[in-house]
């Protein structure tokens, strides 16, 4: 690593550790306030990890029980869409990290720029996801609403080596698709909440809310956005990749 250093613009008052206007009365100093805020955000994210962890466990157990159905179901995932969405989310995590950095540098224009880029990438992700869901509807792969086992009881032209499933196992592909819609749906819900908050952040950042030395909200939202990215990093291999070779 080189010795490139980053100089954070700080006002005279902060350097002298005087009372910052952003400091709440129950904190000793800005550092403590920031630490407490980050700590609280992480506690929330840990509850989110437990929430998604339960659904991942359900996926793990059902996959072992109805393995052929899960393999057959995942063959109908669109590889290009999943890969593209992974790249889109990783890009959005990068732009979000740069947004936090811009707030740190007190660069209002760059902050708004990076938040807007993150917002656009968030919408691109949701758009691709909506396209996939629409496609699954068209293919009768939505359990409970529009489902047919036809694709799984016959040999598909795309997977000529796949043996057709017996009817009882073919029915179990509904469990794969139920978990698929649950996991991607809850993840997409987090994305919708995320893009809504970004819109709010862009408006308030316009007025200079996070570039005067108080950026806990931007930092904590960044943590949330990266967390949603991590959930997708695990969803992508589990739903799209691990049965692809069979």
């Amino acid at each position, binding site marked *: *690593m*080189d*010795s*490139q*250093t*980053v*100089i*954070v613009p700080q006002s005279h008052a902060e350097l002298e*550790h005087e009372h910052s206007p952003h400091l709440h009365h129950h904190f*000793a*100093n*800005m*550092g*403590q306030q*920031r*630490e407490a805020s*980050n*700590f609280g955000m*992480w*506690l929330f994210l*840990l509850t989110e*990890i*437990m929430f998604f*962890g339960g659904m991942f*466990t359900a996926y*793990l*157990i059902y996959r*072992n029980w109805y393995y052929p159905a899960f393999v057959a179901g995942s063959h109908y995932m669109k*590889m290009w869409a999943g*890969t593209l969405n*992974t*790249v889109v989310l*990783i*890009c959005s*995590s*990068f732009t*979000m*990290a*740069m947004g936090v*950095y811009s707030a*740190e540098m007190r660069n209002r224009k760059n902050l708004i720029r990076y938040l807007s880029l993150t917002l656009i990438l968030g919408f691109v992700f949701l758009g691709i996801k909506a396209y996939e869901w629409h496609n699954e509807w068209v293919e009768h792969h939505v359990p409970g609403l529009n489902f047919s086992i036809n694709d799984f009881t016959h040999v598909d032209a795309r997977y000529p080596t796949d043996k057709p499933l017996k009817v009882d196992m073919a029915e179990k592909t509904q469990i794969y698709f139920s978990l698929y819609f649950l996991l991607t749906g809850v993840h997409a819900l987090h994305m919708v909440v995320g893009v809504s908050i970004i819109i709010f952040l862009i408006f308030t950042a316009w007025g200079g809310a996070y570039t005067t030395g108080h950026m806990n909200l931007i930092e904590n939202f*960044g*943590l949330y956005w*990266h*967390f949603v*990215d*991590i959930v997708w*990093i*695990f969803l*992508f*291999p*589990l739903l*799209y*990749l*691990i*049965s*692809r*070779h069979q």
Partner: protein
Amino acid sequence: MSETHFEHTVNPSEPTHHSHTVVSPKVYALVFGALLVFTALTVYASGVELGVFNAVVALIIAVIKGTLVVLFFMHIKYSSKLVKLTICSGFFTLIVLLALTCTDYISRAWGLW
């Protein structure tokens, strides 16, 4: 190293020290590049016949990617011991819950699978 440290003067007897590091864009760009490389790698590996190891390789790559995001994008590499310990205990609890659930499922139909 390409990051800067800011030590805020605090009571040294406090359990958390509020040092504050700003990660440079260069580090972000490197992590970003690594994440893209790992994505390409995992997609490539999924097309190779590895038997049960397809799932293992995919999950190992996912764990590496997740760890990179947590350490650098989420600044955990530079955060206080309190936050580090809290996150580690959270993941430890998740692993305990996963392991106990799996032992339950394996042992209920012992010998029948």
